[in-house]
């Protein structure tokens, strides 16, 4: 078939870009576009929005596995057709949202979704779906899986998804290599390599553009070298920060290691501007084993941080705000996590991370 196509002149693409969503909007949303007045949450997983026109809608937020088979997608469509006028959307966190414009339709919709096995929640002060990436399922550079990690964790956190009993919303992210497509989060679960790449010298010459590999290293630890008579690369291991940046442009720079690619948990990444300005996440704990299929050590640590937060934070405090108030010393005390020299940032411009004041908590 590929050959057949190659002979006939291929078709030129229509560069249509991003489709207009208007005709895919529920008609009540369309009518009230830009006219919404306020909302409340009658129960976890349900948003109730009121318009200036007086119209109202109820939206049910539905957890999915993101990586879906056709039957799952179609079953969502079936439910949306039967109970909700044939419209749905997805959130940035791969939750589906199905909207009805009549309160009477709400409970039947919920019942149908629950019957089909979909969790309902993720609204308000809950733990919503973890944003995840490709991992071993599809990516060419992962040190761990993504869908599996998310499934394992969401099983553990299911109750926190379907209930709203956190001080504020909790956004968790995962990433399957240090590049971090998953982003920052209140709690971010990321790969942290601990050893420099092992170089497959025989492959470098064929596969890698050496100057661009050299250029990718943030600490200038890579030098061109000749190994066994072949052009290759060498790494100054004392400089290397094991970031893995050299690996995508040059797969023979094997950074992934079943044992030494560990998992680190970061906390306090906050991207809303509500109250404080957006903040980067900060290292909580590293050195956790990459332990499929259920990553129990990671789950244990995430829950420890999460429940310490739940039990100690004030309403509306996100994870980072809570820690800022009680201080990092107390964070490590309350969670029982170790504080190490690795928590001290030593990157360029990290001066601003140091405590240059007499503000101290004991």
């Amino acid at each position, binding site marked *: 078939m590929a050959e057949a196509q190659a002979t006939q002149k291929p078709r030129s693409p229509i560069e249509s870009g991003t489709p207009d969503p208007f005709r895919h909007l529920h008609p009540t949303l369309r009518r009230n576009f830009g006219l919404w007045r306020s909302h409340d949450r009658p129960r976890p997983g349900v948003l109730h929005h009121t318009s200036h026109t007086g119209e109202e809608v109820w939206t049910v937020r539905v957890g999915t596995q993101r990586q879906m088979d056709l*039957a*799952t997608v179609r079953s969502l469509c079936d439910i949306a057709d039967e109970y909700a006028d044939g419209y749905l959307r997805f959130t940035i966190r791969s939750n589906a949202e199905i909207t009805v414009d009549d309160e009477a339709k709400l409970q039947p919709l919920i019942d149908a979704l629950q019957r089909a096995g979909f969790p309902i929640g993720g609204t308000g002060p809950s733990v919503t779906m973890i944003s995840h990436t490709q991992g071993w399922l599809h990516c060419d550079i992962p040190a761990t899986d993504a869908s599996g990690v998310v499934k394992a964790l969401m099983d553990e956190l299911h109750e926190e998804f379907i209930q709203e009993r956190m001080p504020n919303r909790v956004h968790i992210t995962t990433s399957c290599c240090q590049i971090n497509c998953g982003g920052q989060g209140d709690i971010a679960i990321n790969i942290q390599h601990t050893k420099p790449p092992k170089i497959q010298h025989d492959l470098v010459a064929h596969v890698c553009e050496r100057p*661009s590999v050299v250029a990718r290293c943030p600490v200038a630890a890579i030098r061109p070298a000749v190994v066994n008579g072949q052009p290759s690369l060498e790494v100054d291991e004392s400089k290397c920060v094991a970031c893995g940046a050299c690996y995508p442009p040059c797969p023979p720079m094997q950074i992934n290691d079943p044992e030494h690619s560990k998992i680190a948990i970061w906390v306090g990444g906050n991207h809303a501007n509500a109250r404080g300005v957006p903040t980067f996440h900060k290292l909580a704990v590293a050195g956790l084993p990459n332990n499929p299929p259920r990553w129990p050590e990671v789950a244990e640590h995430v829950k420890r941080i999460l429940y310490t937060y739940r039990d100690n934070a004030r309403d509306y405090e996100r994870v980072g705000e809570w820690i800022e108030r009680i201080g990092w010393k107390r964070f490590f005390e309350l969670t029982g996590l170790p504080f190490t020299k690795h928590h001290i940032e030593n990157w360029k411009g990290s001066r601003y991370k140091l405590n240059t004041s007499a503000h101290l908590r004991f």
Partner: protein
Amino acid sequence: MSDKTYDTPNLDELESGPWPSFVTGMKRQAQDKPMLAGVLGQLEQSYTDRKGYWKGGTIGVYGYGGGIIPRFTELKDEQDNPHFPEAQEFHTMRIIPPAGMHYSTALLRDICDIWERHGSGLIALHGQTGDIMLQGITADSVQACFDELNEYGLDLGGAGPAVRTGMSCVGAARCEHSCCNEQKIHRMLVNNFLDDMHRPSLPYKFKFKVSGCANDCMNSIERSDFAVIGTWRDEIQVDQAAVQDFVRRKGRKHTIDNVVTRCPSGSLSLNDDDTLEIDNRSCVRCMHCINVMTEALAPGEDRGVTILVGGKRTLRIGDLFGTVVVPFLPLRSEQDYQRILEIAQEIVEFFAENALEHERVGEMIERIGLAEFLEAIGLEADPNMLKEPRSISYVRTDDWDEEAERWYRRQQMASEQAS
């Protein structure tokens, strides 16, 4: 092509538990689509070895240079025979969804049908950049699948050193906080850069994200090169009766502890009659009080957007948030909307010509300095772009007087415009 299934004891562990299981879904799909059986086999191997087994390559459709993420198995025996022959190829097509990720079931069903015909049936809704990811197709089938999707009205998203698929929040469609037409801005921006999306030739990737207010539900400051965020310039709209009602229901202490003292700029004060006093000059438009008292408070009426440039994740110099380059652009007319596009065009053009290879726009700004960057793209420096002015005296202020003059002229023009 064999039709068998493989033992997946590790993956099977992921079928229990309350959260929907991608393994169960993939197994179900594998009954029709052997490719997924092979993929599950390879994934099981990864779970055992703690190693990934895909490698990249180059695959495209006619006329485009990007949008497909090719994956070939690396699990082969000495004779180069794949361990999981069904999964020799497992490419992903990135398809752009409607702005805001709204679907009629008709659209979604049609996508499913086309995908069932050409691919594995595995769909990720959505990728972190906002694409529909159709995961699992062979090189052979890519063109036909694309043609059908494209005829239907869908297009490939970005990959490589290109403008990427954009994202915008639900915003005006269902959110009371929305200060702009997010979807319009989103489509205007991305759809004007389709050439840079489909024929990757920028120094590196470039992402647009649009949030209707400072809650930034699209993480645009963190995760996009060009973030557009709705805001307002006048006063917060207050329904004082609703404020009093809130205080009555929740209590004074609750109101003080959760609204007043949480205001980051000290702009709120609860009056003795339980109405709210707002110092709108000091208010930083953080949204908190409006979030908590959504019945009583709303963004002002003189609305527009803030533009921040340069967000990205870790590679090379550590994570960057976007930096304010346009504090406020009013959105009253079509022309105003066009102005956003003009600014984006200036920036992408300058980026294309001046960034180093594999350098994001944020890294470029850090390298050349914000002042240089603003000058280059013709935007005026403004105190709102800074947390605070410089503390280090290492700067050449030879042209202080001209620069001061420039500011005074601008101030005068602004005040003339206002009057």
